[in-house]
């Protein structure tokens, strides 16, 4: 009996040892391995159809450009359009009078001279401004009191759009980007002219409204007067005519849709605010609009964007595009297709509310960020399980694109587009639009150059065999794992050059990663990149 037990024990220990040595896969956690093991929700057919509205290998001009010109201004977006970017990217904020701004920061101190124009209090011209619209002093002063109560110094939501047009949105760039500074970016600030009872706008670059951004994408520019000040008239909306400010305030409050600190009773004449840009060369990019912090904007911000797009004829739900070609005769034509608008957000609330309104019928990018400690909308557990949970959340709320941060100078963002992460995005059938590219090295890294002809563990989904074109620098086809399907860039000129020289653009036979066996043809895209500086000069900057 004893010997038998000893034998059994020895056999048991041997089995344990064998099992231990055989279970190498169980020895440690590997994100690379887990990325292949974790189930990822796949985009359904309805969302996949909308995904295909978006051109592959799109060059998305981040804020127009943060490198060459003051971001999200007429200068940066006209430049990006003329350079041949596929999309003009922006962020949306809301003014006190409900105008949807295309501007990044909710606090205007960084990108305007607001601290020089206004104090930390409600603009002193506010009562006069109200009176210039036909309201009595008593009425205006009463509203001024309410404005004071809801005031946040230098925050977008505290100012009327007309007031913000007094600001200079270019000088700060000259002070912080010395090498790219241009005298034409600076401006004389505006002011309230008590003699005429009118706001006089500044004479340079402005905080943009989303209507401005769309106009630039359409090949237009601002209408300006002889002094270089934009022409944009405004008046009380018809529905509020004859009412006092007190009555307007209560009427807005009664709507209950958003906080009455937003007094959206003013109408701006955007219809006559733009003219054909004489420097337009025919590119028609789309726009890529980001919903920002939900708590800093009205609850119906997404509806406001929907309405603004409709007003401009850019809402494909209300007015589907008839063209499908992303490029025509060497010009960008995305702005004439159903891919003309892409929405984006980090915000859980904005994503959900946008889905309620747009219902997944307009391409939506869900952006990823991580920090320590995790911010309210960050992915907090950045492992394959957490990544898959966020991909599912994005799809369940009508997103078609994932936008992960990438590492590298000068931004040094956290890496959220490692090969295993790009692999999971591809597994989900969603488009991968990482942000933001500033260097050639980043393009080499995320477009596979560093793994040229080398096998990687994610080749099954990410390797792309790119046939050579007449513009391919090496003259040969290439085989690379590609960790993006388009990207946000501050260097449109560099990104286009990379794509053209490496066969991603101007190619009739790019394998389509979303439709096996099919080609993606962008041979009609522009294959020569204008000089960045000369383009700025041609545009008058």
């Amino acid at each position: 009996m004893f010997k038998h037990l000893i034998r059994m024990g020895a056999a048991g220990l041997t089995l344990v040892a064998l099992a231990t040595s055989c279970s190498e896969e169980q020895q440690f956690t590997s994100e690379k391995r887990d990325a292949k093991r974790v189930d990822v929700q796949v985009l359904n057919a309805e969302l996949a159809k909308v995904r295909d509205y978006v051109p592959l290998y799109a060059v998305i001009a981040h804020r127009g450009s943060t490198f060459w010109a003051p971001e999200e201004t007429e200068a940066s977006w006209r430049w990006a359009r003329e350079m041949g970017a596929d999309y003009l990217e922006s962020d949306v904020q809301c003014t006190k009078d409900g105008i949807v701004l295309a501007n990044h920061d909710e606090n205007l101190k960084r990108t305007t001279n607001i601290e020089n124009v206004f104090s930390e209090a409600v603009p002193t011209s506010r009562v006069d401004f109200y009176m210039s619209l036909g309201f009595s002093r008593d009425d205006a002063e009463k509203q001024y009191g309410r404005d004071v109560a809801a005031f946040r110094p230098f925050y977008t939501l505290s100012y009327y759009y007309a007031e913000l047009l007094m600001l200079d949105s270019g000088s700060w760039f000259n002070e912080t980007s010395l090498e790219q500074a241009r005298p034409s970016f600076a401006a004389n600030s505006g002011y309230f002219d008590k003699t005429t009872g009118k706001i006089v706008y500044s004479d340079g670059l402005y905080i943009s409204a989303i209507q401005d951004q769309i106009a630039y994408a359409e090949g237009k520019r601002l209408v300006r007067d002889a002094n270089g000040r934009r022409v944009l008239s405004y008046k009380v909306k018809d529905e509020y005519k004859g009412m006092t400010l007190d009555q307007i305030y209560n009427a807005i409050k009664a709507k209950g849709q958003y906080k009455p600190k937003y007094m959206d009773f003013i109408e701006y004449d955007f219809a006559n605010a733009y003219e054909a840009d004489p420097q337009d060369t025919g590119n028609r990019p789309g726009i890529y609009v980001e919903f920002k912090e939900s708590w800093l904007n009205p609850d119906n911000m997404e509806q406001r964007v929907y309405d603004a797009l409709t007003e401009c004829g850019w809402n494909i739900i209300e007015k589907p595009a008839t063209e499908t070609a992303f490029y025509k005769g060497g010009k960008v034509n995305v702005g004439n297709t159903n891919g003309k608008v892409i929405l984006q957000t980090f915000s859980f609330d904005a994503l959900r509310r946008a889905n309620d309104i747009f219902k997944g019928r307009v391409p939506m990018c869900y952006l990823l960020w991580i920090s320590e400690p995790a911010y309210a909308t960050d992915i907090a557990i950045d492992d394959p399980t957490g990544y898959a949970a966020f991909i599912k959340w994005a799809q369940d709320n009508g997103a078609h694109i994932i936008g992960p941060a990438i590492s590298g100078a000068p931004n040094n963002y956290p890496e959220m587009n490692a090969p295993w992460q790009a692999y999971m995005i591809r597994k989900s059938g969603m488009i991968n639009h990482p942000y933001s590219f500033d260097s050639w090295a980043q393009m080499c890294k995320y477009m596979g150059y560093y793994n040229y002809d080398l096998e990687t563990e994610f080749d099954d989904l990410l390797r792309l065999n790119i046939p050579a074109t007449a513009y391919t620098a090496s003259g040969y086809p290439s085989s690379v794992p590609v960790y993006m399907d388009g990207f946000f860039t501050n260097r449109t000129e560099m990104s286009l050059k990379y794509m053209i020289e490496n066969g991603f653009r101007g190619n009739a036979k790019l394998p389509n990663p979303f439709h096996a066996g099919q080609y993606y043809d962008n041979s009609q895209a522009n294959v020569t990149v204008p000089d960045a500086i000369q383009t700025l000069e041609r545009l008058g900057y």
Partner: protein
Amino acid sequence: MNKYFIMPALALMALGAAAQDFDNDPTLQLEKQDAKFTIGARFMADAATYHSDFTPLQSGASISDARIRTSFTYKNWYLYADFGFGGGKFAQKNIFAQWSNGTHSVKAGYYNDPAGSMARNTSLGSYHFISRAGSSNSLGEGRELGISYKYNTDRFMAYQGVFTENQYNKIDAGFKGLTIDGRYLVRPIIDDNQTLHIGVSGRFAHLGGGEVYNNILKKTYHMSQSLETFVDEDDQFVTADLDWANNVGSIGAEALYHNDKFFIRGEYFYKHVTKKRDTYSLMIDAQNNIDGWGSLEAWDNANKLRSNNFHGGYVETGFQILGSGYKYNKCDGLLGGLNGKALEIVARYNYTGLNDLTDGEYFNAGRGHYYAAGYMEDWPGTGATSVGGGNLHSATIGLNYSFNKYVQVMVDYTYHRLCSDYHPNDKNFHVGQARLQFTF
């Protein structure tokens, strides 16, 4: 006359000693007049192999326990101390003094909480499985510093005491807390061959210690268990930290029956944790930017607090194929371990429930948070009250063989089925493990 009193008392004390952490009386015993000193040791080495669906566990071998134990007996007094150095770390185990006349006993020092569970009061050296049932580890309690009184007869045992949270005054802030508890048994059957005991236990603990953040004392109650194994004691799968815990109420029920060849025993645990915080101060501290809360109500809605309830239990059974039969330790109301050459097969089912979920809340594994709205929200907070500590079903079969009263080998296989929002890819775990243990 004195001799006739002392010798039974020594025998009783020896029995008492055996029940604390091992069943075998130490071999090295020094006796002088009416005093006796013993010194002994215990050693356990485990080998284990794990297979999981997703999260890896570290298969291998480890020294699970290595311990030196000492005791000193003098008349009605019994003094005991043992010290562990398993895992390469020195650890204080039991240290206590006990006075007893057989029916009444008073014990003071650092030792197992009477209501901590039948399993936790049973020495691992006397246990019939490689690990105690998971629910007893997560929902039961271990050693505490305090004093207890026990009334014990053949038919009844009433064992109650007053304790503090831990043995060292090393908490960051606050005081050490106070625990009042008791374990009560009735034995309808008790003779040389078989015993049936049925019992209840109750425990109330007021948590005293915690950490101070921004001048606010934050007390956290921790519950967890491993996958009933010692080689990889990872407790991430079944774990809950309850911030702002204030009082912990526990009730339990237990039953044990054995005869010579067979035993069956089980316990049920229920735990209720109340919470308390300085809401106003927390809200004021959170008013640190322009996106402030505005009102206490707004903060409170975004940071809801509620009490939590958890429960679990296990049933264990065994059949002795050869050996001298199962013995009951009346002194402590526990089943004894194998004694002498013996072979047994054992089986166990355990359930641990550390999920206390609120209906309608949404969990996202990328955030590691629940959301009260049923979807993720940006700000001001989740408002969620769910605790997703994990529910675990575990089934174990085992084979134990003792060569003699000093040396024993054990083999267990356990299947675990996990339900945890934090580990959506982990459902099934297989644990095979073996142990060599000896005591002297």
